């Protein structure tokens, strides 16, 4: 906030200070007070949002295990030209690192880390560390290779040299089904190891499908809600909100009870003789299960923004269009629909982004074919314990969401979003 330029310079306040300075002082005080009010929110955002995301992004490239767990070897291997096997100094460094690492039990983390990249590295490292006592002395090169032949493998040393750097792209490569070839080139993983790209694509298209289904189902409901008289409209609103207030897990498991092979829907179909008892339909633990359950769960997020937009459209517009000669379809298409685009945009982006990040519902009802990339993140967090890879996949998902948001902003404009 600045003073208008035509303010006379000489004016002062009652206590003799220049008016301009005094006003600026007052404004600054107000701003500070306003800042104090939002401070809790800022602090909360930093602690609960920015720091965790930052640490996730960091973890997806952070690679401290080898450089810290095998410090001497990492330094010795750094300027190896990769032609012949590394020389004696590298093996001597390896011997020292294994000796200290085994004594203070820091070698295990290196073993776990390298085993992701090179199957069998765990026992090569741990086994050698355990048997170090048998070695009599230099030359260490021959001695280490006699402990475990893997130490004479050229590819293994290329891998150690690569992973000895304090940061790595291995996790990102793995997240898009690529890997380093032994010579350092980036190549596709063999077909039987490819998984992530397929799941990313599936997550995206199923989320789009769920968004579209939500829109198709929500539009008439929202229209009804907005146009019914208050009494009936409120009742309908409660029917929309009631499931919204019910626990997510309850709603998901209800779908299991309805859709499973011995479930309600199959029972009804069998008793109506639509299908025989031995041809019960598989409607859950596959894509269908995920789509049905998630469409139901996310539906209110589409209805509510649509409703809030439709509520503001005067009924007279449609009547006016009709009285001016437009048929019902034309009136809807040219007059009503364009006015609801902001609601459609808000609902769609909300449902789509929520759906991309959904995890528990696909896990419970999705089976194998209905699994999302988020389930794989959970798997790498809890089961395979490859947290770097989990962070890389999650970061890619974050970028995808940001790109979707930017595209959306370009097409519809975030300022047009109306949530109520």
């Amino acid at each position, binding site marked *: 906030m600045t003073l208008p330029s035509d303010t006379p310079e000489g004016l002062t306040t009652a206590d003799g200070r220049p008016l301009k300075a005094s006003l600026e002082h007052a404004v600054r005080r107000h701003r500070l007070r306003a800042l104090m009010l939002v401070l809790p929110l800022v602090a909360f955002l930093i602690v609960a949002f920015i720091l965790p995301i930052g640490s996730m992004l960091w973890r997806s490239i952070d690679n401290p295990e080898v450089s810290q767990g095998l410090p001497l070897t990492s330094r010795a291997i750094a300027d190896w030209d990769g032609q012949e096997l590394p020389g004696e100094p590298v093996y001597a460094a390896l011997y020292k690192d294994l000796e200290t690492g085994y004594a*203070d*039990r*820091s*070698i*295990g*983390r290196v*073993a*776990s880390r390298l*085993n*992701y990249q090179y*199957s*069998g*590295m*765990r*026992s090569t490292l*741990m086994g050698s560390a355990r048997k170090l006592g048998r070695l009599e002395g230099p030359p260490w090169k021959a001695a280490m290779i006699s402990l475990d032949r893997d130490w004479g493998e050229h590819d293994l040393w290329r891998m150690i040299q690569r992973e000895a750097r304090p940061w790595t792209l291995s996790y990102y490569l793995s997240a898009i089904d690529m890997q380093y070839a032994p010579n350092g080139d980036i190549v596709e993983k063999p077909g*039987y*190891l*490819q*998984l992530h790209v*397929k*799941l990313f694509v599936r997550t995206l298209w199923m989320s789009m499908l769920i968004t579209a289904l939500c829109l198709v189902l929500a539009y008439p409901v929202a229209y009804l809600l907005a146009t019914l008289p208050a009494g009936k409209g409120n009742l309908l609103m409660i029917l929309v909100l009631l499931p919204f207030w019910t626990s997510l897990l309850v709603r998901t498991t209800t779908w299991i009870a309805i859709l*499973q*092979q*011995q479930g309600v829907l199959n029972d009804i179909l069998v008793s109506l003789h639509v299908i025989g008892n031995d041809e019960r339909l598989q409607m859950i*633990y596959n894509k269908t299960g995920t789509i049905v359950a998630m469409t139901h769960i996310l539906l209110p997020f589409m209805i509510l923004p649509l409703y809030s937009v439709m509520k503001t459209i005067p009924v007279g517009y449609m009547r006016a269009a009709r009285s001016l000669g437009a048929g019902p379809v034309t009136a809807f298409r040219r007059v009503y629909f364009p006015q609801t685009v902001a609601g459609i945009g808000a609902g769609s982006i909300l449902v789509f982004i929520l759906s991309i990040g959904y995890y528990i519902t696909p896990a419970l009802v999705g*089976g*194998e*074919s209905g*699994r999302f990339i988020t389930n*794989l993140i959970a*798997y790498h*967090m*809890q*089961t*395979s*314990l*490859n947290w770097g890879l989990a962070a890389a996949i999650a970061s890619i998902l974050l970028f995808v969401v940001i790109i979707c948001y930017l595209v959306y902003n370009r097409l519809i404009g975030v300022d047009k979003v109306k949530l109520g």
Partner: protein
Amino acid sequence: MKKTTIATAVLAGLTLSGLAQAQTLNIVSWGGAYSDSQQKAYHDPWMKKTGDKIVNIDKSANALAGLRAQTQAGNVTWDVVDMLPSDAIIACDEGLIDIIDADKVLEPAPDGTPPSKDFLENSLGECFVPQIVYSNILAFNTSMFPKDKEPDSIKALFDLENYPGKRALQKKPINNMEWALVADGVAPDDVYEVLSTEEGVARAFKKLDTIKDHVIWWEEGAQPPQLLADKEVSFASAYNGRIFNASVNENQPFDIIWDAQVFELDGWVVPAGKLDRVKDYLAFATATPQLANQAKYISYGPARKSSSALVSTMDGTDIDMKPHMPTYGPNFKTAIRKDDAFWADHLDELSQRFNAWLSS
């Protein structure tokens, strides 16, 4: 004057309670019938003896992840953790758990045999004290097959013609790959040798391909008995104790195919720095009578030889527990010992391949 007296009294009280301080132990285990057996055999007598409070946490399925996370956060709240030996090897190598000198910490057998001699061969780890021998077996619901055509071999799992229906298998490569090879004609003793080669892995996946469309994958130990009881599946892989408990306690018509059972140990580890705090509990819980007692509640074999001799009947019944143990002679003929070293090396890669296979 009065104030001083009170203060002295309070101080004295504090000191006294400090001497016989009852503590709370957070014990991590597998939940379900297994935790129940531990509660009755170890926890209840210990709480009665010392006044300690024991809190059960059912997190063993993700114990290694939990230990890593708690250690990284610098706030380890677990005191004793029930874990598989393959996970214990990794945790021990990474320094997440304490090294346990069995002969110093644990109780000798009643006849004085030191623990290192009394526990089964190669069962004590550097950081690991075994409790039980359990087994991964294939179970079926007897009411789903005619009496004269009940399956008794692992081949039945892959025989869709004679034994139709869905199969429930655990969603990980372990056990499934072993069974695929045995059903394909590999001798149980050679399984891991074959599995170490690329041809062996391809062969196992090819065999699994034949039933892939008929499998429901389970992740929690409580699922297979449920799926069998609901008749959603004809076969389910499961932990043998869960099947035994469901058939005895809930009268379920379940039977076990012992052919090609994959057996392994399960036991305690202690998070780094906690050993002093839990030493007494650990010694008590792994003493001969306690381990023998656990076998009254679940059909897992005790890991001590001196306890095995004491195994008798199930608590409150006259069911002899011995024929239900994985180590019982006839059950044990074609058993496979899970190779922890193999899986420690190859689990990362084979899991990756297994997951890709699942979604292809």
